[in-house]
């Protein structure tokens, strides 16, 4: 009976729960789903991470290649993030060119990398004007259950922290690179941004870490990216129903608390790997 009601009138079904301050999956309105992080399992990649946020599963692999720098930025390397939503991740995705959600999330990842300064493009330079590193950070969503942005940012940062680049020097005379495959230098990650997303349902109720069902009901989605210093990096609210200033402040507060949890999780994962 409940299953049929849910199918036919999802919004009314949700209202009944939200009135009592709970969601159908048992969470409180500001609670996050169980987060699992696994790093370094893909050895063909220079750095990798797997993140499970509830049922949303994403894998990020970092591949480093060499290239000539842009003429207008001879001392800068490249960081190229991309998010892929293959047809396997959900029944609504089909094979073919990237869906709108994938393109939007890719752009968000690029903004996070650029504006948080997590990887310094100058440090990716091997020889000024001649040789730089290109870090291809490909995030593949294996299972989609809402809140892609958060999972992708966690996976990206964990993979970058896990990345080890081979030592490369450029021979001045022959102009060819000399690569020492046995020496691996960890990538310098200078800051650790964390994204937190919220969905506005029923034009008033704010839900943290929405799943796919809640996203389908949402009238607005807000993503807040914060840094360790407690500073705001990005606030992304692309239209949708307006929210009060107090609600926005509450989002930011929750984001800062959540960011601490994620950084702690990443630290524990990294230490357990080193042991």
């Amino acid at each position, binding site marked *: 009976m409940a299953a049929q009601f849910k199918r036919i009138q999802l919004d009314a079904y949700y209202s009944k729960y939200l009135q009592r301050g709970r969601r159908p999956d048992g969470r409180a309105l500001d609670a996050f789903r169980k987060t699992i992080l696994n790093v370094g399992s893909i050895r*063909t990649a220079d750095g990798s991470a797997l993140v499970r946020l509830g049922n949303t599963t994403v*894998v990020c692999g970092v*591949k480093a290649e060499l*290239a000539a720098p842009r003429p207008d930025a001879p001392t800068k390397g490249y960081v190229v993030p991309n998010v892929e939503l293959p*047809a*396997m991740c959900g029944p609504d995705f089909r094979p073919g060119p990237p869906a709108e959600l994938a*393109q939007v999330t890719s752009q968000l990842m690029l903004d996070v990398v650029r504006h948080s300064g997590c990887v310094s493009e100058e440090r990716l330079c091997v020889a000024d004007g001649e040789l730089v590193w290109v870090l*291809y950070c490909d995030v593949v969503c294996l*299972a989609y*259950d809402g809140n892609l942005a958060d999972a992708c940012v966690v996976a990206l940062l964990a993979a970058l922290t896990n990345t080890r680049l081979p030592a490369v020097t450029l021979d001045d005379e022959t102009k060819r690179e000399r690569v020492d495959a046995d020496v691996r230098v960890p990538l310098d990650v200078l800051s650790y941004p964390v994204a937190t997303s919220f969905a506005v349902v029923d034009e008033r109720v704010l839900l943290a870490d929405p799943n796919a069902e809640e996203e389908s009901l949402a009238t607005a989605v807000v993503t807040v990216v914060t840094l360790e210093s407690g500073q705001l990096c990005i606030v992304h609210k692309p239209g949708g129903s307006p929210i009060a200033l107090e609600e926005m402040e509450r989002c930011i507060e929750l984001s800062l608390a959540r960011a601490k949890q994620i950084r702690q999780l990443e630290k524990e994962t990294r230490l357990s790997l080193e042991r």
Partner: protein
Amino acid sequence: MPVDRMRICGPEETRHPLVLELCGRPVRLFQDDGTRLDGRSADQIRPMFMKCGVISHAQGSAYIEMDRTKAICAVYGPREFGKREDFSIKGRLTCEFKFATFSCKIRRQQQQDAEEKEFSQILLQSLSPAVCLHKFPKAQVDIYVMVLENDGSALSAALTCGSLALADAGIEMYDMVVACSVKHYCKSTLMDPSASEESELEPEGTSTEEKPAETGLLTVAYMPSLNQLPGMLQTGEMSIATTKQMMKACIDGCNRIYPLIQQTLMKSVERKLKAVNLYNADQEEKVS
């Protein structure tokens, strides 16, 4: 390379730092004590791990690990036809195979290249005979396989994973499809080759002018209960006798893998039954 407007692009020309080393250096076959590079004997298969039900929104899904080779598969369907074509008394199966960009030593492109398209075709042709297509007329079943890390025998992993996912989805099948690969080089037959063994190998003691007569890779898809081969892919130069011997080795390998597949499916069924029982127990409580 044409500019891909829908993705974030890096510079036009990039190269892998170890490209000269990776493509030029041949690899030794055996260590000094006669075992392979990873310590296995010639006919030993790598340890495997399989799990069903890893993607919640898919009808059926499976994940397989053959030591470092990792593949994941999702099955959706039976659902509506992609294109509204004429009525068809048999259902349709589509298959998409993809290597993740970071799965191989040299980064792969995001679009499907020729090798991936070929593997998609092989998967489709090898899995179709096992599925009861007449049970879902006018409908389509989609199989999506992605290899997350390629350390050799990726096609075999994909085939086995695909058939596990189909079974997990509850699609009616005549039999499971199990796959195994074998590499033949210089009179040695290596079962379940790793990535370094699949590439060019240099045996000790032969000069570079003398190329060994028989070298090649064979992947076989096998249906254990029906004792039939829905698929076979052979590359390289081999005599008929060697090919037959390699086929037998593959079938033997498949028979060794089959019990693990049965166990994995049983575990998945147990888990599903538990979930249903919990739901039924809840319903009973509400009624009483």
